């Protein structure tokens, strides 16, 4: 019988498998996806948020524990477990050498993300290069990997793991790490979680999934049904506004629309609904998905003029382009009269100061609701561009409650040999909101903890058994 079974194939699962193997356990990894789609959402990630007290290789200045914690507190609105959060934060300062020892390489910040040079370490080649490196290392160390093995249920006995089953196939082990992701690609579950709104719409029907089509939450649901303690709200997720033409799955980073803060955003009724200039787009990245999800038809349009072109990340699909605002309204299928009222009111309210899209500048609106507090320049220079936005779900936050040993809990009691990592427990730390790279910090920290805990549990059983 294998010592440690790892269910899942993304970053957290790989960290767990490598740690368990390094601790001397035999490890079997079960990945639901075929090899070419392996890694869950991790092929789409690109950096790790890292605390550091002084400049460290690719990281500049300092990003101390307290500042990281305050950033997390701010985005989560307090929906976080401080003990577990600080554990992940501290681990983020020391995990990079271990990652390097498994072939992960870092590079200085990318040209479109210079603001993160202080807080985030970027992977050379991005998340898929990281996943490839971990798989190579795992195979070299003798971890067995089985692809196309989606686990649908566990055999449990008094809160202890016995075996995992994929249809007729049964995998027994002395200990198990669950790192099989969230449920964002389970359309039915999303629909049920978001329900029907006052307009009679099912908002989740209009969501796009930015990541893996294999994160169907089958095991998560099964564990909750088996009495495992859950944490988090099923409607909470990392959710950004992405190009409405993005593919249903795996659109990843390139489908983001980066020009929101440079123009205005209107809904299907051609009205603005939020301060586009509240903060830099990356900092407010994770709020626009939910904002659009609350609009009629779960759709909105980001409108810019020619002055913005070249000041934001190039979009993957061309925008709708027009030489006048009324023509743009017609092309976008928006009510022309309302659209022009919205745009004229905005243009008239702009109090231009010194425009600088690289700092929180003093260009703002006066007497306008909602206000635009920075980068408020009138939209007056043709050609104008419009990009349709839809909510894009990256990952969900509903997960299994856990502790500093990454143990799964049943009725408040930690399991002796069942552990959880990654998206399946990120909600312990991240109850809502998001800040770049923190998903990887949590996944790496708890993946490593879960792997160590599982190896310890399995080896203890080896001695006693």
């Amino acid at each position, binding site marked *: 019988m294998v010592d440690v079974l790892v269910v899942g194939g993304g970053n957290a699962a790989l960290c767990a498998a490598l740690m368990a193997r390094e601790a001397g356990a035999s490890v079997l990894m079960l990945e639901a996806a075929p090899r070419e*789609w392996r890694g869950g959402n991790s092929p789409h990630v690109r950096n790790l948020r890292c605390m550091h007290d002084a400049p460290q290789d690719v990281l500049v200045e300092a990003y101390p524990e307290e500042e990281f914690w305050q950033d997390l507190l701010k985005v989560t609105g307090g929906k976080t477990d401080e003990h577990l959060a600080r554990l992940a934060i501290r681990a983020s300062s020391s995990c990079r050498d271990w990652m390097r020892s498994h072939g992960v390489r870092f*590079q200085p910040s990318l040209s479109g993300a210079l603001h993160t040079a202080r807080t985030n370490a970027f*992977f050379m080649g991005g998340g898929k290069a990281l996943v490839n490196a971990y798989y190579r290392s795992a195979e070299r160390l003798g971890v067995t990997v089985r692809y196309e093995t989606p686990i649908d249920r566990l055999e449990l006995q008094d809160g202890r793991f016995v075996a995992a089953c994929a249809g007729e196939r049964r995998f027994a082990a002395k200990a198990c790490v669950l790192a099989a992701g969230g449920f964002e690609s389970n359309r039915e579950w999303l629909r049920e979680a978001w329900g029907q709104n006052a307009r009679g719409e099912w908002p989740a029907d209009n969501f796009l999934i930015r990541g893996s089509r294999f994160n169907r939450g089958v095991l998560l649901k099964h564990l909750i049904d088996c009495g495992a303690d859950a944490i988090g709200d099923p409607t909470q997720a990392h959710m950004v506004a992405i190009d409405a033409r993005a593919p249903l799955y795996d659109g990843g980073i390139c489908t983001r629309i980066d020009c929101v803060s440079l123009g205005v955003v209107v809904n299907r009724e051609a009205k603005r609904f939020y301060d586009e200039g509240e903060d830099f787009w990356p900092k407010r990245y994770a709020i626009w998905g939910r904002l659009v999800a609350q609009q009629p038809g779960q759709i909105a349009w980001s409108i810019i003029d020619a002055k913005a072109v*070249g000041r934001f*990340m*190039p979009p993957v699909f061309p925008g709708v382009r027009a030489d006048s605002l009324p023509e743009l309204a017609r092309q976008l299928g928006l009510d022309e009269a309302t659209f022009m009222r919205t745009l004229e009111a905005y243009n008239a309210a702009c109090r231009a100061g010194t425009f600088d899209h690289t700092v929180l500048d003093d260009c703002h609106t006066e007497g306008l609701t909602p206000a635009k507090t920075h980068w408020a320049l009138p939209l007056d220079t043709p050609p104008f561009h419009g990009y349709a936005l839809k909510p894009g779900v990256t990952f969900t936050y509903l997960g299994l409650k856990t502790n500093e040993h990454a143990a799964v809990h049943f009725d408040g009691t930690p399991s002796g040999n069942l552990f959880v990592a990654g998206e399946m427990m990120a909600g312990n730390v991240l109850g809502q909101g998001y800040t770049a790279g923190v998903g990887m910090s949590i996944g790496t920290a708890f993946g490593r903890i879960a792997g160590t805990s599982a190896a310890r549990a399995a080896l203890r059983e080896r001695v006693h058994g």
Partner: protein
Amino acid sequence: MAEGRVIPIVPLSAAQAEVDRVLTICNACRYCEGFCAVFPAMTRRLSFPAADVDYLANLCHNCGACLHACQYAPPHEFAVNVPQAMARVRGETYAGHAWPRALGVLYQRNGLVLSLALASGLALFLVLAVMREGGFWQRVDGGNFYAVFPHGLMVSLFAPVFAFVVLALAMAVRHFWRGISPGEASGPAVGEAARDALRLRYLDGGHGEGCNEADDRYTLARRRFHHFTFYGFLLCFAATCVATLYHYLFGWPAPYGVTSLPKLLGITGGVSLVIGTAGLGWLNLKRHPTHGDVAQRPMDRGFIALLFLTASSGLVLMLVRSTAALPLALCVHLGAVMALFLTLPYGKFAHGVFRVAALLKWAIEKRQPNTVGVGE
């Protein structure tokens, strides 16, 4: 308006349009920015007209790293394959800028079989010529191959071919260079381009561990075998140059002793070329099938084979020069050299001059202010 530059509108070929499509996706992602110069050069652009596509395609070292790291690679519906798209355009740029223009079609016909057939045809021709003189299988006094082919005859055969090769490649790269409108080359830019070309910097993967060959593992194999090949070629070339100087300047005709400078250069170069081309040929056979353009493999292999044949026959010639096999070995070697030179301007060798031109443009361009300012 950000598009301040006047760019002539040239319709894109299918291969160029694919690079345009792929780079539009890459430019919105940029995860590969650390691998090589193609991606930072890309981020200085918002669109990809034909001349820029040609430039970026020749800046690509076909290392494969960005394919294995790509979240949008097949089977993703975006089907992003940068190395393959770039390789197809490179093939078109070699043919499109060929001089004389009409000979550009030779790129499509420069296969392995053709190259070897040309080499053996020429060798056979030489063998027949020697046989007419009746000295095909005989010892030659002191290994003096001028007794087989007089020096004047060799010069009159090779000098025009060599001059034509230099002219054809110079005209081709000049045409390419004008198309990509690179701007003024400063001393530091020239120095950097030369260093990057001589070190094959962009085959280091950005982290010094190399690029990808058969799978997602990084390896320095291609960089090293390419170094053996390139520097081996240069040493052989240097041997010929020194021998020419000896002949005309000092009146010291060949053959030279084993410890002479031309021999030392030639032997080292020949051994290095044999190692390098054997390695590159082996890597070419093992290459991940989706890297590069499979249609250009005959061209790649033809060039590698001719280089290998030239180097190995040269070494054999040196070993058998005191035996009766000298005339035969000489014919084979000269046939290989002649075939190699005849195909240089219309084969894989062209990648060297086009790549250096693209590297120089990048070295110039990176010193110019970036008009696209997307950073926060």
